[in-house]
């Protein structure tokens, strides 16, 4: 029977589906997790999905102390859009995104999780810090800023019949990856963008741009109620180090790190480089008295 034993290594990641009511509509949300310990909920970038965190979930230095959980937002990855999607334009709002995160954490019964988000996920972490600090043990914003100036005028390029959505999303995002990032993980990251549903990346950017100017409110974040870490890659020209620096300067106690040889997708474009910055943060959160 030896030949019936598994012949290839299984990764520790498991995936499941969760039924959530969001804005009064039933949703079927996919999530993956690995590890045990403090819940660490990971929020993917706009137009992508939870696969961006697969390296984190395969890193025993993380999963030994953290239960790493990443969901695909509705419309992304393996989470379907809600019934009736064909007759609407997808548009993510700040309030809707906050509700999604809180609902997800409640549904899984997570007690004061750490939330780590990147790009729009990093941006929404600022709202979690301002509105719900008591619900989280710590918050980590990657490529996160109160505001970032747009670098192209019209997100309509992402969703129009004469330009292939997947191709243009991938080609636009390619510039946000640091030149030092390994080829394999660079193209993994871009593949995620190439696979997004029509108009989904554009719909996410509504939250990132039109509904995402937090310059008037980040000063009200109280880091004594919940620690806030902000880490940004030096090659990110969408959310630049200066954008994050501006934000950190207005939040007393916010911990700022600029990461070298990293762009807009730290956890997926160069996981080896990213963990050098993330592991000390996770240790500090786990052992706050040290």
């Amino acid at each position, binding site marked *: 029977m030896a030949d019936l034993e598994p012949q290839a290594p299984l990764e520790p990641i498991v995936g499941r589906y969760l039924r959530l009511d969001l804005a009064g509509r039933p949703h079927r949300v996919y999530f993956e997790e690995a590890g045990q310990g403090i819940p660490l909920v990971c929020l993917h970038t706009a137009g992508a999905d939870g696969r961006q965190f697969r390296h984190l979930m395969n890193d025993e230095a993380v999963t030994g102390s953290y239960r790493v959980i990443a969901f695909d937002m509705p419309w992304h990855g393996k989470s379907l859009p809600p019934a009736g999607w064909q007759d609407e334009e997808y548009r993510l709002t700040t309030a809707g995104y906050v509700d999604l995160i809180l609902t997800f954490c409640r549904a899984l019964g997570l007690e004061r999780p750490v939330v780590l988000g990147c790009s729009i996920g990093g941006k929404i972490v600022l709202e979690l810090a301002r509105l719900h600090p008591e619900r989280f043990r710590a918050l980590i914003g990657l490529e996160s800023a109160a505001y970032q*100036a747009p*670098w*192209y005028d019209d997100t309509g*390029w992402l969703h129009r019949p*004469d*330009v*292939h959505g997947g*191709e*243009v999303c*991938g*080609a*636009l995002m*390619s*510039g*946000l990856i*640091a*030149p*030092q990032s390994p080829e394999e993980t660079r193209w993994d990251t871009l593949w995620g963008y190439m696979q997004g549903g029509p108009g989904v990346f554009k719909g996410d950017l509504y939250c990132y741009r039109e509904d995402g100017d937090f310059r008037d409110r980040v000063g009200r974040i109280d880091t004594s109620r919940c620690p806030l870490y902000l880490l940004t890659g*030096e*090659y990110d*020209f969408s959310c630049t180090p200066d954008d994050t620096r501006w934000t950190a300067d207005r939040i007393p106690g916010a911990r700022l790190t600029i990461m070298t040889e990293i762009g807009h997708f730290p956890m997926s474009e160069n996981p080896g480089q990213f963990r050098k910055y993330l592991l000390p943060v996770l240790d500090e959160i786990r052992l706050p008295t040290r």
Partner: protein
Amino acid sequence: MAESDVHTRIAALPELVNADALLLRRGRYLTTTFLVEMDEVQYLVRVVEGRIASVERGPFLMRPWSFAVRASADAWRRFWEPVPAPGYHDLFAMKKLGVARVEGDLVPLMANLRYVKDVLAAPRRRGA
């Protein structure tokens, strides 16, 4: 790399691109002429089904092109460094930094964005 070398590099686009079968395949639906500017020097790059048919150096009096990418010679020099510094590592990064401009009919550019970016970055592969 001296700044004068950027002109040598753009002139080498046909040999760089036309020897790359994957790049030719990626651009096979694109036929257009686009303008590349380095300081005040202009080049018209003629693309026929992904192949660089010609790179013609100006000045031009009244010649049509679909889209234009304009930057200083210094910006192009930095863009073609083997490992470009932040801000000079991508066409749109340079645009955001304010050292490059992208103008004209953007449909052929955006519909073939990976190809055009790869063509413009091709001189980087030659090393400094």
